[in-house]
């Protein structure tokens, strides 16, 4: 996809969603749409480090929760518009990413992952014991009924999330096609070789961590207004860690479109299962489909589509070579 087409399509998409939103009277659409967009943003953010550079971050919840709690804290001091809170959440989570990056990125593979996990656990204890933001008893955040541009407040949050999701996807696409993207993929393929070939590995990794953390913090910032109540167990809920990792994997980690597809698909499945199946089996279905997706398309939906396309033109292409061939789609 050429640059012109990408930006054109993105613009058309935003206008269409906005127009459609004007026509919708059913608020559920905005509530569900918000969830989809939030996960597009989270999955894209995770993929900057996890997909491009191959560093698995288990601590997404820490960044996401930092953004959310930044909103709670600032909102207690003075009433600020949500976009400013989003910036604040993004900056603070980015700073956390910077610190974490310098502390942990010398660690490779699983050690990095465990370090991010430890970070999330330490951070949760800090929030739990910080009574200013509600601590363990949780914080109530009063959401106004109406948004500043007419329509409901959740509609407003939905559009903010739409803007952020689109922005993150554009950023991911830009990175993917830049020197930074090639550098990160070199790190993923062989970090030692990349380093000896003059790729500034540590700087690139730290930069990716900062960007990834910033986006996750931004994703978390509107959360208190969406839920109206925030306590540590819900801000650090396992489902955020699971989804931010599973979604890019299901969609495909090599290209910007993968996390988007994964997020849309998995959120749609989870949401549909949750609001149509009345019993506990909704989660069973989610689990089964998650396994089915990843088993049928181990390189993600994007990988599957590519292999299939190739299979049409050439005769047989194994999944494996499709995996090795780093995608330049888009």
């Amino acid at each position, binding site marked *: 996809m050429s640059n012109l087409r990408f930006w054109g399509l993105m613009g058309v998409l935003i206008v269409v969603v906005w127009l459609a939103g004007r026509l919708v009277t059913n*608020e559920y659409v905005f509530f569900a749409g918000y969830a989809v967009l939030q996960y597009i943003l989270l999955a894209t953010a995770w993929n900057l480090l996890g997909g491009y550079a191959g560093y698995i971050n288990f601590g997404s919840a820490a960044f996401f929760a930092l953004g959310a709690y930044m909103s709670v804290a600032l909102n207690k001091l003075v009433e600020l518009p949500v976009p400013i809170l989003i910036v604040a959440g993004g900056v603070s989570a980015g700073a956390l990413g910077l610190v974490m990056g310098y502390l942990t990125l010398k660690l490779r593979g699983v050690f990095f992952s465990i370090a991010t996990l430890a970070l999330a656990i330490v951070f949760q204890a800090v929030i739990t*014991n910080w009574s200013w933001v509600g601590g363990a*008893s949780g914080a109530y955040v009063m959401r106004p009924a109406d948004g500043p541009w007419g329509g*409901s407040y959740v509609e407003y949050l939905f559009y903010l999330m739409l803007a952020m999701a689109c922005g993150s996807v554009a950023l991911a696409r830009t990175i993917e096609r830049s020197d930074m993207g090639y550098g990160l993929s070199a790190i993923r393929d062989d970090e030692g070789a990349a380093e000896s070939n003059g790729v500034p590995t540590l700087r690139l990794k730290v930069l990716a961590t900062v960007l990834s953390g910033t986006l996750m913090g931004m994703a978390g910032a509107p959360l208190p207004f969406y839920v109206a109540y925030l306590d540590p167990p*819900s801000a650090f809920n396992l489902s955020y860690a699971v989804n931010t990792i599973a979604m890019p994997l299901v969609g495909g980690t090599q290209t910007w479109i993968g996390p988007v597809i994964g997020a849309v698909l998995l959120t749609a499945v989870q949401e549909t299962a949750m609001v149509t199946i*009345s*019993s506990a089996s909704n989660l069973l279905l989610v689990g089964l489909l998650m396994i089915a997706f990843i088993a049928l398309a181990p390189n993600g939906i994007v990988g599957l589509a590519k292999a299939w396309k190739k299979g049409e033109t050439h005769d047989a292409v194994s999944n494996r070579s499709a995996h090795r061939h780093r995608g330049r789609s888009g």
Partner: protein
Amino acid sequence: MTQFPIGRRTVIAGALGSVVHGGASFAAEPIKIGFSIPQTGGLAAIGLQALLTMQIWAEDVNAAGGIIGRPVQLVTYDDQSNPANVPRIYTKLLDVDKIDLLVTNGTNLTVPAMPIAIQRGMVVFCMLALAVNEKFKYGRFFQTMPYGPRGKESISEGFFEVAMAMTPKPATVALVGADAEFAKNAVDGAREQAKKHGLKIVYDRTYPPPTVDFGPVIRGIAGTNPDIVYVGSYPVDTSGMIRAARELNFRPKLFGGGMVGTQAATLKGDLGEMLNDVVSYELYCPAVAARFPNVEAVLKKYQPRAKQKGIDPQGYYVPPFCYATMEILHQAVTGAGGTDQEKIAKVMHATTFKTVVGDIKFGPDGEWDHPRMLWVQFRGLKGQGMDQFTNPAAEVVVSPAAYKTGELRYPMGLAKQ
């Protein structure tokens, strides 16, 4: 074994089953009652009890001709114990399923529904939630647990009253609770109570709910040598705290508090004699059964089905008050002559409701106009086994005075008595 149809709206099917059973008398549209309930995750143990009770209520109502001639239909989804799912479930219920009435449960699962309910002027029939309306001050919110107007202090008031009546008067108190919403509020309330009664707080700490070994926590408390210990805890840690206290033979003058879990049959049965002399709260227990004779009929229907589903087989804690919530809803809709939310809210404020758990009158904040938490002391338990808890003497009500069935025994004795 139990069957679990993976179909749409199993719950509704259950309710409708009895609609059909009731004959063709219903020509009217059903009244749709919508709610989100945790069926998986950490809160499922309580959520599934509430769900079963509501199903039983719906069957009872439909068999008796419905509400104002209309059958009731339950529409429910599993929020997986995650508050972030709640806003979507309630908007779906309201905008797509077009429910007529809205029920909520649990504190952290009710708050996310509040802005949505407020925006649409829906009456909130709420249960098992603590002090939600303190922040919202919503005139159409009604909560059925008997916490009363002072919210979180109700989970310690009775305990401290009982404690201060001991001779000699206790001088020191240790406060300990889980790092989670209910327990934290319980301990916050207890701190106020301790100050009010002039007790010296010698230990005031929290622990994370996933703690495995409570021995170190109990040792830390024992090191400060308090007269009384107030614990705010959740089921698994309640069990851990009591076990650890017994194993380390830590026996202050009074041990107990707002311990969730001492109401659950299987946990009580497991702890058995270790519970002797522990003081905790109850909403309903065999000791007061004679005061509330209609609870028996609900439990008779609940118990066999609960056993089959693997949830609390005795059901003294959640089902009576959950059933009462639905009875209130029934009477309010009947009183309002329909599902007009404004009329229902008026009826809710004006009426004293007759329920299985006694008369309920709501104050202006939508909580009971007076607290009625029962404070019980466990007595005469032997070994393990939950059957002994059906005996009214196993839990002696020590407060409030109106329900008292015995005197507090102190100081805390050995487990084996």
